[in-house]
């Protein structure tokens, strides 16, 4: 009887696994979202616990320190106002040129701030979960960035949360341009499992002229990432496949290991 019992358990678990693994992608995604909602109460609890030290520090911050911060923010605000006025004039000038040459008008960026609430528990994926979901208009393949540069794209979204696949993950491929005279173009692919501050820029032409420190930005090809988002800087380059093409190591502009808040880009 005991033997029968463990054979039944073996068969049942194997069958359940095979059923789960053979689910179509849409059903598998829905199942993950449904089971993921079990963790929602814990997300709320964790958020409250994370806010507690901040709230305690707020009550302890002296008035002098607050005044100093206020003064610094006022000064920064004045600088930003001056820059915004200058940018407004440039935008107006740009608009006039666009009309003059008949170029298509650029759509302004619409961004929504999100908190990073969780990281992938598996070591072989680089993903994070954010606290924006379909109720906030988040859907698959929306670009995610910070003020420093590109972070990744939304891979799935539930009602309250979304999973973001980071630029250092194998499932996030980005077409990129090097800001050099030749405007060399390549594909960003993951660096290594340990250090997620570096990625590889592959499929650059064999005669690409790359120098350390050159900026790498998104090319806008592929339809997911808009053109011009900073990705990082070239560290070094080497020829591969007998010089057929060049591969470069890129230091990412964003520190993916310490992400706390990100912006979701809406077209």
């Amino acid at each position, binding site marked *: 009887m005991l033997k029968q019992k*463990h054979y039944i358990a073996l068969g049942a678990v194997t069958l359940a696994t095979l059923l789960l693994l053979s689910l179509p992608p849409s059903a598998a995604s829905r199942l993950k979202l449904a089971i993921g909602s079990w963790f929602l109460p814990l997300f709320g609890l964790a958020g409250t616990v994370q806010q507690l030290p901040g709230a305690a520090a707020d009550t302890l911050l002296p008035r002098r320190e607050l005044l100093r911060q206020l003064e610094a923010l006022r000064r920064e605000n004045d600088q930003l106002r001056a820059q915004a006025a200058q940018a407004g004039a440039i935008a107006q000038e740009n608009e006039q040129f666009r009309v003059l040459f008949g170029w298509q008008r650029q759509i302004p960026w619409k961004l929504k701030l999100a908190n990073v609430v969780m990281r992938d528990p598996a070591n072989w994926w680089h993903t994070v979960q954010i606290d924006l979901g379909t109720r906030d208009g988040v859907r698959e393949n929306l670009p995610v960035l910070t003020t420093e540069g590109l972070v990744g794209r939304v891979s799935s979204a539930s009602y309250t949360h979304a999973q973001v696949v980071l630029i250092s993950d194998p499932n996030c491929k980005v077409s990129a341009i090097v800001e050099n005279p030749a405007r060399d173009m390549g594909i960003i692919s993951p660096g290594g499992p340990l250090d997620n501050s570096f990625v590889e820029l592959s499929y650059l032409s064999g005669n690409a002229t790359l120098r350390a420190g050159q900026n790498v930005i998104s090319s806008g090809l592929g339809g997911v990432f808009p053109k011009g988002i900073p990705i990082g800087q070239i560290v070094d380059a080497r020829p591969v496949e007998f010089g057929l093409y060049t591969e470069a190591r890129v230091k990412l502009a964003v520190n993916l290991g310490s992400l706390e808040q990100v912006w979701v880009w809406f077209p």
Partner: protein
Amino acid sequence: MFDVPHSMNFLQTILILAAAFLAVFGEATLGGVRQWLSAQVDLLPALMVYAALNTDIVTVSVLAVFGGLWFDTLSANPPGVSILPLFAVGYVIWLQRELILRELPFAQVVLGAIASAVAPVLSVLVLLTLGQQPLLGWGSLWQWLVMTAGGAVATPVIFVLFDWCHHALGYQPPSEPSFRPDREIRRDRKI
């Protein structure tokens, strides 16, 4: 300890599942070890060692299915990838449980290390079989070592915690007093 009543088995199953749920959530939200050692420790294999040595095959199966599903839900794994590796580890230990000196911390450490080393390798093999491209490289070897060491350290701790829960929450049969009235020795003197 191992011939526990049915109600205790049920309570133990619930406790193990709750621990698995919290462990998966903790692995996803607490980044201390990840930032320090560039690898996250998985506690599910260590929990599976405890479940395989102290509970029945039903609990082992339930832990594999739910623990694996929870883990896959919070990660980018397709759902179901972690179930079979966890169950394989638990099943083999459960089959050999009579031969294992489960009370010894050394045995727990060794079993925890083996389980934590085997489970991720099997998961990656399942992923590769499914045509997925997990992020692997020489650095993965370091991550595997960290996971093995983490599991080895966590297993005896899990045993201690669950033994404590078992004593605190489980039914303890009242101990029989040594006094028996029919064995009373009368020390009176006949005059």
